[in-house]
């Protein structure tokens, strides 16, 4: 540990750390543009210059290591003047097209001008004209006039993905970020470039001109699209109360977690957010007597309970067939196991997930369900192989998720389902299955519920709801608790589960794996 003074405040800093990081830890932010804690310092923007006792020049906070007894000033007049000078330079050759720039509102150049600027520019010359919309990747557009040449994008591709699609060409004021010939940025993580760009130079075609960043609300969640469980922020417009415009998710951004995804997320997680809003099932649909009748939860659950109880009293629960998926939360998997295997003693419990996808050796896992590890830990991960065989001798089929469509053709599913008296589907999206079953019940998504997921490395991650569930949909844990209470088999046990936290408390007590995982 090194004892240093930053702005006359005593700070104890890790030996070998930089001034910028030590100051940040002590709650003293030092402005920076090119520095990003995931990369080696570049020292080119010159925003982080600070005054150090005994040094004739201003020194870089981003690359200078702390030494015992160092005295540092981050807001002295000399430092502030230098920062203003750097900002004046940057803004002199900047197009200042904030009104049409997608980065406006979250642009570091804007922020620092607010903080240090508010000065009249002395720049009276002609600004350089440069390429305003150069496609550099499938979702990336580069505006070279806005670019401040911090080289974060180059360093990301050099140090993180190691694909090196971007470089710098030309010299001096004419330096520009460039691709090599026609080789576009093409990797699973290209979307991060727009996110780490401190200004509006690299923008995302997926977000370009769609909304202003300050209209968006932001909430923390976990990406459920593969078993990595990257930490994400969901940025959405909540909708307008008086006019019929519904909430809409505009983008997914990464949230730092050094243990899971560092600062990054993959393009699958970033761009596949339409599943949150599009084709969502909003109503409970009964196809029982007439096709497509909307009913309420009370009636739907009563219907299911009646059917199950009938078989239960006849001691024929072996004729109930359950299909679940491993994108359910730990709490929900626990309830599935409790209700169907332990209470009702079902024999036919199978897992049907979406197909495996392309993976890589960084974040994206080929296992696309978010809680496979959780299902494994609970010992309920037997996969369904033959639908039709099991459909024989079945009276009730309960399906969670519409992942059957990934493995069987609608024809095959119809043939199997026709043999079963009662078929019930819990799903979040409309699909071809809706008309093949007797009852369709809408469920909430990870972004809309509270709970925990166990990622591929066995890390248990908790999350809170960011969005309201659409329409009548409910989280599966809530549906399962209500079902269990209605079944009245173990009413006092299920009555205590007023929230997923209560379920997790039980989970910790009953499954040793979870009691060891007290992660955040």
């Amino acid at each position, binding site marked *: 540990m090194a004892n240093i003074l930053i702005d006359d405040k005593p700070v104890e800093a890790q030996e070998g750390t930089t001034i910028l990081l030590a100051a940040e830890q002590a709650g003293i932010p030092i402005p920076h543009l090119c520095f990003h804690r995931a990369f080696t*310092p*570049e*020292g*080119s*923007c*010159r*925003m982080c*210059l600070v005054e150090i006792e005994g040094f*004739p*020049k*201003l020194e*870089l906070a981003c*690359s200078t290591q702390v030494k015992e007894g160092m005295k540092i000033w981050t807001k002295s007049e000399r430092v502030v003047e*230098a920062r203003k*000078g*750097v900002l*004046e*330079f*940057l803004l*002199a*050759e900047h197009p200042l097209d904030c009104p049409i720039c997608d980065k406006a509102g979250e642009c570091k150049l804007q922020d620092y001008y607010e903080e240090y600027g508010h000065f009249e520019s*002395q*720049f009276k*010359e*002609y600004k350089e004209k440069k390429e305003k919309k150069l496609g550099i990747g499938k979702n990336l557009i580069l505006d070279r006039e806005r670019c*401040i*040449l911090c080289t974060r994008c180059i360093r990301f591709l050099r140090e993180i993905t190691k694909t090196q699609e971007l*470089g*710098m060409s*030309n*010299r*001096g*004021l*004419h*330096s520009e970020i460039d691709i090599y010939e026609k080789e576009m940025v093409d990797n699973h993580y290209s979307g991060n470039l727009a996110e780490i760009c401190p200004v509006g130079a690299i923008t995302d075609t997926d977000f370009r001109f769609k909304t202003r960043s300050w209209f968006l609300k932001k909430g923390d969640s976990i990406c459920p699209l593969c078993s990595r469980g990257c930490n994400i922020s969901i940025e959405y417009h909540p909708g307008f109360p008086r006019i019929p415009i519904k909430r809409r998710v505009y983008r997914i951004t990464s949230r730092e977690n050094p243990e899971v995804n560092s600062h990054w997320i993959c393009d699958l997680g970033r761009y596949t957010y339409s599943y949150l809003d599009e084709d969502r099932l909003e109503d409970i649909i009964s196809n029982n007597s007439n096709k497509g009748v909307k009913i309420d939860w009370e009636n739907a659950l009563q219907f299911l309970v009646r059917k199950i109880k009938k078989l239960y009293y006849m001691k024929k629960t072996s004729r109930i067939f359950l299909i679940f998926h491993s994108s359910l939360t730990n709490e929900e998997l626990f309830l599935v196991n409790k209700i169907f295997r332990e209470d009702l003693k079902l024999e036919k419990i199978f897992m049907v997930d979406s197909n495996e996808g392309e993976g890589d050796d960084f974040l994206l896992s080929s296992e696309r369900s978010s809680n496979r590890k959780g299902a494994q830990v609970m010992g309920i991960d037997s996969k369904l192989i033959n639908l039709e065989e099991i459909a024989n001798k079945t009276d009730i089929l309960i399906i969670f998720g519409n992942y059957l469509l990934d493995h069987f053709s609608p024809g095959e599913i119809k043939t199997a389902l026709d043999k079963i008296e009662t078929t019930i589907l819990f799903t979040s999206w409309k699909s071809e299955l809706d008309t093949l079953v007797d009852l369709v019940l809408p469920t909430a998504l990870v972004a809309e519920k509270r709970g925990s997921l166990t990622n591929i490395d066995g890390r248990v991650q908790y999350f809170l709801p960011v969005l309201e569930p659409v329409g009548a949909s409910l989280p599966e844990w809530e549906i399962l608790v209500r079902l269990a209470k209605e079944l009245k088999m173990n009413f006092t046990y299920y009555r205590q589960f007023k929230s997923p936290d209560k379920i997790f408390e039980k989970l910790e007590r009953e499954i040793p794996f979870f009691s060891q995982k007290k992660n955040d």
Partner: protein
Amino acid sequence: MEEKVITQNFHLKNYFKMDVYLKHDGYQAVKKALKKMKPEQIMDEVKKANLRGRGGAGFPAGVKWGFVPQDVPKPKYLCVNADEGEPGTFKDRYIMSHNPHLLIEGIIITSFCVGIRQAYIYIRGEYEAIAQRLEQAISEAYEKGFLGKNILDTGHDLDIIIHRGAGAYICGEETALLESLEGKRGHPRLKPPFPASIGLFNCPTVINNVETISNIPAIILKGAEWFCKLGLPKDGGTRIFGVSGMVKKPGIYELPLGTSLKDIIYKHAGGMKPGKKLKAVVPGGMSAPILKADEISIKMDFDSLVNAHSMLGSAAIIVIDKDTPIIDVLKAVAKFYSHESCGQCTPCRIGTSWINKIVKRIVEGKGKKEDINNIERLADNILGKTLCPLGDAAAMPISSIVGKFREELESYVSGKQNDKKM
């Protein structure tokens, strides 16, 4: 006549050829150093000689060698900086074209001293003929066994590779030179780490100027004491002054450090051209702050020039006469640095081009009085705030020109405006 270290035999015909060079005591220093001296003795001798770097910064060469860690398993490299890009400087090209074997001798001794088996000469791209001459000299040295495996049966190996630059001023900056040599874009690196510990290909590296290395053989042969006496106590040896501009006899002059600028211009370079009067002198390459005509009685050594708020730099003296408008000088300086800024760091990239744009506007007759203050302010915003010395190299001469010739610039600006009104 003063004693010379490097240029004494430049007048000999075909001195660049091995047989002529050998007839005039060539490679005696290599034989002495490799056969009779230990590396530590060589380093001591060079340290005692107070040989300061001739590239511009003036860092003592022996001390620089001493920074190279000897206990790392990595290979060590020597890079000879022959990128001679500083405007007004042309001394290294004379050394390399007239006396290439002296440089090779210096490289062999330096490499033996520091334990280097691979040396590079990074030569300015425009010096194509000189690069060929160096290649020729190197192959002669291989033939005679001064290079290659087991030099003079001492067990020391050394290879020299010539690498031609592609014409960027920035690649004369030592870390940008390393990047360029590694095949990357010539961008300066952050220091620390310094090249002595992490340099070329992340290995310990010595980087010296051509003239610095060319001084080594004489130090070995004649001793540090002799070398020191040539110059000043803290600043040993001679300097090759490259005089250009409005003098009768422009060219290179090897003179002891501490020779007065007045003597160089009037005694050695023959004084001003007929009908020309001295206006200003740039004493150490274009990056050095300008001196006015009444400041030339100064001694030409590192410390005296620092005291006069200028620098010895590459010892390239540019003589400017009274018929040259100072705005033309400023225009040339501003254009050069804005063209050669590598673009890596903000103040240099935008600052130099901003100043260039203002100067261009002034030249076009659209200047205003406040532009001159603005140039000074911008130069101040560059000075000391850039990643490498290029920013300072641009800001210092610009500040000094504006500071010392403000009246002329102001009258130029207002004069042009008056012309327009008429």
